[in-house]
Structure formats: C-alpha cells, structure tokens
C-alpha cells in the first residue's frame, strides 16, 4: 500500500508540474486521521494526499461540478467508484475530456463504527498489515482481523475497475466477491407484510432527515432536488410523521432506481445506521427479475431499464415480485 501511495503521489506531482491537470481530487485527513475527507490538491499540498484502508468516500460525484470549470482535474477512483463514474458519464453529467482518471487498488475499507462498537475508545490512528488492522488508541494498541471490521458494502465487492483509465495504478486484477447482494432483500421479502412493516418502521423512524444519504449519493446529481422545493412542504425540515419518513425514503430510492450502482455510500454515511442500501437493492432486484439483469455503471452509454420498455413487459399485477416471496 505504501508503494502504491508513493507511486500515486509522484504521478500526481508530475501531472501538476507539467500542467496536465490543475488539481487532484483525492483524500486528506479529516478531524482525525481515520475519518478521511475528499479534497482538492495542488502542487503545494500534494504531500498531504493519503490513501489507506479508511479512504471510503466515493469521489466521482465531486467531478460533476469540477468538470464544468476550466482545465482538467485528476481523480483517484477505487474499483467500485468507477461504476459511479461510468454512470455519470452515461448521463452526460461529466465531460470525460475534463478528467484524468487514475484507478487505484482497493482491498476493502474499514468501518470505524464497527471498531467503536467493539468497545474501542480513544482511537488515534489505524494501520493495515497483511489482512490485519492495528488500531492505535490512547490506551494502547489493538489488532483486529480485517474481515471483522470491514465496511458492509465491501463484502459485496464488484472486483476490478471497468473503464479505460488514463493512468492505472492497480497492482493486479481482482475478482468480484461471490456473495449475493440480493440475499438480504430476499430475506425481507420472505417475511409477512406485517413483519416487513414493523421492520421498516423500526429502521426509518430513526431518520433525522439530515439528507446525508442524498447529498453523498453519486446518482443524486439534480441541480434542484425535489426535496429542496419549498412548495413541497418537506424541504429542509425533519420528518414530522411516519408518512414523511416513508415518503422521503421511497422517493429517494425511486429517483435513483436503474441508476444506482449499489456503491453503498448511503448506508455508510447514515448517522443513524439505517440500512438504506436495502431499499435501493429492492429496485435492483425487481429490475433484474422483471427486465433482465442490469448493473448500472457496468458499461458506458447503456440505457436504464426505467427509461426504456419492451412491448411485452409484465403488468404490475403480474410482475415477478407478486409471484415470489412474501405471503400469498
């Protein structure tokens, strides 16, 4: 990892020096070294660029605004971020010529909340060595197996990057994880409607409407969001009733249906730990079951199943979800 970081840094320094790019979009330390924040780097501060097991944020969304400005910008994309990037290219949200893509290797990111939930306090920094995570705290060091503290989304890794990079820092190709991301959805679908209602009430009632899930989502790139409309009655305020909780999450997931790459950022940033990705995956599953398997961002220029049709689609009453799962 250290060698990769040095390679990325020297490449970025070179790009900035010869004027190919005006800035590099990457991660720097946040308030603590384990909470990385996205940032733009120039030749002056390129040394503070970092990349390790805590660099979870997906950077592709920041390019939407950045690619509209003069000059080129370089970006570091992890394999799963390339899906979001492809999707944004497909939607013409980013001009490919304005971006210098550097694909970087990833072996899974760490979920700091998982470490905290194991009673570790006063964390100062994290270190990764051969599949082990050493947590340095104010009270001494602790070592965890990486699999125990990995982000939930990393268990459903999509494998290697799938776009033509301008500079490829990947060490080797990686196969996608063999876990089936739709298993959790199937488990919920097998419940009765009553149980599902109770389950989602328990989850969604914790929502504080901080809008973090919307703001971080690389598919949510509307200039003006439906939830920012003052006339909607739901703009910039907390949910007041169970209806508003349901509505916000149904509409949020619906608006990215067919475009969601299942990057898992929504669940990662949720301060209330609501499993928001399960809502998106329900749409992914219904699309797969009814209209054929589709992975958003797999290729550039694909047409989303929600903006296309075939003449012999099933009617809603005959669609696949009505037949399998749940009570009959």
């Amino acid at each position, binding site marked *: 990892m250290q060698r990769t970081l040095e390679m990325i840094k020297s490449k970025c320094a070179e790009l900035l020096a010869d004027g190919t790019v005006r800035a590099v979009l990457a991660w720097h330390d946040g308030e603590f070294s384990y909470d990385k924040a996205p940032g733009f780097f120039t030749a002056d501060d390129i040394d503070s660029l970092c990349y390790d097991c805590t660099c979870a944020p997906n950077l592709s969304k920041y390019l939407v605004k950045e690619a509209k400005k003069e000059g080129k910008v370089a970006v570091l994309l992890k394999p799963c971020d390339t899906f979001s990037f492809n999707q944004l290219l497909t939607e013409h949200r980013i001009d490919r010529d304005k971006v210098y893509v550097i694909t970087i290797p990833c072996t899974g990111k760490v979920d700091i909340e998982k470490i905290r939930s194991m009673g570790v306090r006063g964390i100062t920094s994290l270190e990764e060595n051969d599949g082990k995570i050493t947590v340095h705290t104010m009270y001494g060091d602790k070592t965890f197996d990486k699999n125990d503290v990995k982000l939930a989304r990393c268990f459903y890794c999509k494998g290697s990057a799938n776009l033509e990079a301008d500079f490829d820092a990947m060490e080797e190709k990686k196969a996608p994880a063999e876990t089936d991301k739709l298993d959790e*959805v199937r488990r*919920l*679908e097998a419940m009765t*409607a*009553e*149980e*599902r*209602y*109770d*389950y*989602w*009430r328990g989850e969604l009632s914790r929502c504080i409407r901080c809008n973090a899930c919307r703001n971080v989502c690389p598919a949510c790139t509307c200039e003006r969001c*439906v939830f920012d409309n003052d006339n909607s009655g739901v703009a910039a305020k907390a949910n*007041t*009733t*169970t*209806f*508003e909780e*349901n*509505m916000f999450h*149904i*509409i949020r*997931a*619906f608006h990215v*249906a067919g475009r969601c790459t299942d990057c898992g950022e929504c669940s990662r940033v949720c301060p209330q730990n609501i499993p928001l990705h399960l*809502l998106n995956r*329900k*749409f992914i599953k*219904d*699309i797969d079951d*009814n*209209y054929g398997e589709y992975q958003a961002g797999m290729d550039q220029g694909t047409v989303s*199943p*929600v*903006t296309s*049709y*075939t*003449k012999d*689609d*099933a*009617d*809603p*009453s005959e*669609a696949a*979800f*009505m037949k399998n799962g*749940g009570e009959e």
Partner: protein
Amino acid sequence: MPMNKNGEYTPLIVAFCCNWCSYAGADLAGTSRLTYPANVKIIKVPCSCRVNPMFVLKAFQRGADGVILCGCHPGDCHYLTGNYYTRRRMTLLFGMLDYLGIERERTRVEWVSAAEGAKFAAVMNDFAKTINELGENRRLEDLRCKEPLK
C-alpha cells in the same frame, strides 16, 4: 374515517384516469347508467405516465385508502409509448410499497379504453370491494390530514 350517511365505513379511492381513454370510459359508464361506487374520486391526467410516484404517495397521505391508475391498453397510448413507461414505473413503485409492508392490494393499474364503460364500472366495483375488505389505510396515513374528531 369516511362514513356514509348510514354510519358505515366507506373507503376513499383515488383513480388517476388518462384523458384519452379511461376518463372517457368513465364517462361512458355514466351515460350507460352503469353504477360504480361514488367514493371513487377521479383525477384526470393527460397520460397515465404523467402520474409520478409522489402523486400516489400524496393521495395516500391525503386520506386515500386505495389508489388505482387507469390508462390506455399497451400499444394504444395516445402519445405512443407513455403507458409502457407507466407499466415499468408502477411495477417498481408497487414493489417498493409491498416491500415496506404496505398492503399490495391497495394499489392497482388497469387498462381501460374509451369504449370500455362496462369494464370501468366493473374494475371500480371490484377495487372498491377489495379496499372495503382491507379497511382504512393505516400504514401510509398522515395524521395531520385526518378529519378532526367530532
């Protein structure tokens, strides 16, 4: 809770009807003297694909117990392809409502042409019966929109 004058529960049903087919179908049902429940409130839309998922949710918020979309038969859309999109969108939306535990019988899509007055009445009677059995919509209600207690 909406009641009729005999004090019996009567559900509120919102029907989004396409201007070019089922709205005329409802008209035909009326001029043919066919009965369908008076608690079906029809909202005319230029095409069934005008109905955005928010409309369906808002209808439930404002007290609907069931929401039905009526559009032209696939292939007969006035705008050629509108109802094909409706079909996909509503499949996904109804799937999500079902996933959140909201009874799947509360939502429905039907294709009713302008010549099918009898079908329109039959569909509405059947839907009203289903909703009557299900009772009040509790899972997507907004208490602020309920009538005050008397």
